[in-house]
């Protein structure tokens, strides 16, 4: 029974792993598309982030700098 459960677990893990889509550094143009942004309006996002930082006395964690090139 335990061996059967292990096989099922392995099969499920393999299926889930197959669903992952790694994005190579040279494919990050897809992530840079406007419709891939969490907030489509960059100005609104910046205003919300600034307000959040002022109210919470904490900043950062929302995003990282750079163009998503993976080189820094």
């Amino acid at each position: 029974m335990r061996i059967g459960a292990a096989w099922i677990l392995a099969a499920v893990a393999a299926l889930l792993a197959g669903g992952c889509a790694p994005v190579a550094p040279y494919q990050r143009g897809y992530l840079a598309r406007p419709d891939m942004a969490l907030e489509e309006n960059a100005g609104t996002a910046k205003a919300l982030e600034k307000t959040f930082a002022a109210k919470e006395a904490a900043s950062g964690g929302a995003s990282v700098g750079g163009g998503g090139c993976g080189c820094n």
Partner: protein
Amino acid sequence: MRALAASILFALSGAAAAVQPGDPLPAVSARELEAPAAPLALGSFRGSVVYVDFWASWCVPCRVSMPALERMYRKYRGLGLRVVGVNKDVAHADAERFLKRVAVSFPLVADGDDAVARAFDVQAMPSGYLVDRRGVVRYVHRGFTDETAAALAAEIEILLKEGG
């Protein structure tokens, strides 16, 4: 558990080894960005010092690297330097918009099916591969700053002095 290990190993086996200094220049060809009917084989530059640069409009350091490469290309072209820019934009219009701001005179190729990037197993953007006259990759640059430009110019001068 053995099945899980086997499936992970199978997934990893598909990954190509990244091109390192000492490796031969991958024998790939690509279509020119502005003239899609004209294929450009990287091997056709044998006998010249070649810098293969992977760039894209969304790549922030490329705003530094492309003008720097253009300056080096103009300076060393007569001595035997060739530069090839491999564009990694999804949309051709994005590349065109970038090139309107940063005009370059060296050949540019498209890589829509990722064949060239996969052959080099590009690890970062931009990535540049400096190849000597015998077709051997001698220096690899990942990312680009003013320090990279200075180092690259020195490396180009070393390789230009070497025989074929």
